[in-house]
């Protein structure tokens, strides 16, 4: 027989009260677990989706000229004859500190060519990277090989070409593999082919005009990545497309703030449930505590009994709360992830965290009732006679 036995037996005797405290805490913990798991899963999901919005870093050749184009309207001054970037320099991007955050790298080479009597902008691209960088692209047809091209929708209309049509560019016989559906961007007015073919046609072997980078920046500062890329590609100007980056961060930050706010409120409500129930329990046990004190239990012993009871319940609530929160998130996450891309995995940190949170909240909320119990006058036992 020790203080632990007394605490445990009292809990078994007052099952309804113990279950009420357990439920209050478990709901609090499960809500926190669910919110954190949900935010985590959705963060990954959002990051994944945001990647689809395209590149967020541009690598262009250094130039003294200012761009004179706006919204697709050219006012002159744009030159593709500027010094270009060496393709091999781009391979160094794989060695930067945050290389793991580079989701896609799309080198592009540009040049003006004559097709069927029209001047058209030719773009050589890495089609594999393009699907990451321009996920909104939809092509009627197939991905071209060395002898194929994809036409922008306007280009196809102007040139009167369809999928399967032959065309000649600088004496080279090519075939239209597909036509890009309208994108509402400058891509509609271009002819796309593989980087290699374009470099050969434009006599720009080993050179690229620009490159787009999709950086996954959940855990990295975008500015640091820009600096790292600048360092390894010295002849280029590296720019972050701040709008996209800031937008990503803002969305995640708001989401997190909201969930933390809700978590704090839920934990406060849970601790109030514990406080009120433990206060009631202590009041009900006036006589019993009086007997304990009368027969020689010190104040600290009584304090410890109440805290042990709270500790037992809280520990159980931590475990139950984690399991419930995880299960709820697992079940609910598909409702919020249209593509089904979000998923959660059990996290040791979260298991430990929810256990510690439950025990801390339970003990802190029970400290005042335990203090009141320990201050109880042993005379109350005798006076109750």
């Amino acid at each position, binding site marked *: *027989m*020790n*203080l632990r*036995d*007394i605490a445990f*037996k*009292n809990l*078994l*005797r007052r099952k309804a009260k113990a279950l009420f405290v357990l439920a209050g805490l478990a709901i609090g913990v499960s809500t926190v677990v669910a919110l954190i798991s949900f935010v985590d899963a959705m963060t990954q999901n959002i990051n994944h989706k945001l990647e689809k919005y395209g590149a967020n870093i541009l690598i262009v050749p250094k130039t003294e000229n200012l761009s004179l184009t706006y919204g697709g309207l050219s006012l002159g001054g744009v030159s593709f004859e500027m010094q270009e970037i060496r393709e091999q320099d781009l391979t160094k991007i794989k060695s930067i500190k945050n290389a793991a955050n580079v989701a896609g790298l799309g080198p592009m080479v540009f040049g003006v060519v004559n097709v069927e009597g029209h001047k058209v902008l030719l773009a050589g691209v890495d089609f594999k990277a393009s699907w990451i960088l321009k996920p909104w692209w939809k092509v009627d047809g197939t991905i071209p090989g060395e002898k194929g091209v994809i036409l922008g929708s306007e280009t196809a209309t102007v040139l009167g070409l369809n999928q399967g049509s032959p065309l000649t560019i600088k004496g080279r016989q090519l075939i239209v593999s597909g036509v890009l559906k309208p994108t509402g961007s400058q891509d509609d007015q271009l002819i796309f082919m593989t980087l290699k073919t374009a470099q050969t046609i434009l006599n720009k072997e080993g050179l690229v005009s620009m490159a787009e980078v999709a950086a996954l920046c959940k855990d990295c500062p975008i500015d640091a990545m820009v600096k790292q890329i600048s360092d390894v590609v010295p002849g280029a100007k590296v720019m972050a497309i701040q709008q996209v980056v800031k937008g990503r961060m803002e969305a995640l930050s708001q989401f997190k703030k909201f969930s933390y706010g809700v978590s704090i409120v839920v934990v406060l409500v849970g601790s109030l449930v514990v406080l009120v129930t433990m206060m009631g329990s202590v009041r009900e046990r006036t*006589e*019993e505590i009086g*007997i*304990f*004190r*009368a*027969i*020689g*239990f*010190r*104040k*600290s*012993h009584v304090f410890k009994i109440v805290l042990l009871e709270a500790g037992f319940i809280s520990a159980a609530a931590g475990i139950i709360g984690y399991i419930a929160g995880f299960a709820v998130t697992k079940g609910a996450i598909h409702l919020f992830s249209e593509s089904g891309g979000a998923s959660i995995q059990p996290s040791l940190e979260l298991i430990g965290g929810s256990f510690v949170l439950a025990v801390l909240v339970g003990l802190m909320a029970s400290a005042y009732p335990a203090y009141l119990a320990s201050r109880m*006058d*042993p*005379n109350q*036992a*005798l*006076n*109750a*006679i």
Partner: protein
Amino acid sequence: MSYIRAEDLSKQYGIGDAAVMAIHDMDFTVESGEFVSIMGESGAGKSTLLSIVGAMTPPTSGKFLVDEIDVYGLGSEKRTDFRREFIGFVFQSFHLVPYLTVVENVMLPLTTVKASKKRKRALAEAALDQVGLTGKEDRLPSQISGGEKERVAIARAIVNDPPVILADEPTGNLDSATSHEIMGLLQRLNREGTTILMVTHSQDCAAYAERVLRVSDGRLIEKDEHRTSNEKQTSTLGTFPG
């Protein structure tokens, strides 16, 4: 020197116009191994006196000493330790903890004592044996009779072998036959050397004591009423195992 000494004990509740003197200048002594009953009408101050003797209510003035220890000179927690080591309480309403078994109730005063569970249980079983409750260790208080509950309360009071037992109306809730059993039990414990102070209304119960302290209106009106062996009642039912 007497084992228990009360010197000019007074206890006042409230202040100003609301002040009530529960006890006035009480002086008495109790020798080690004595069986003393405290008698008086309701509101006479018996419970306050017992509470002071039980190291639970500090007097407003005066001194209370047990075995030369100035009980109210001790700090609050030291006084708690004193209670645990020196005093066994027997309450009128038994005051057993309902969710603990008989043996666990008896083990309660040993809870904070450093000893193995096995040792504590052995001591509790020995105390239960002394009061004749062997075989009922694992029952809950709700599963035993009133007389048995009182015996459990006595076993709890003696389990850590305190030199003094304070009993407050120990037979107040019992029928006549069971009352005699309980009084016989207390008498036997007294014969074995335990000092007993018992508050009672009952002349029959008081007759088991060697001496009566009579209290009226918070004053001790008689403290030396010794009984001869002929006057002292002896339990005819007081043959318990152990």
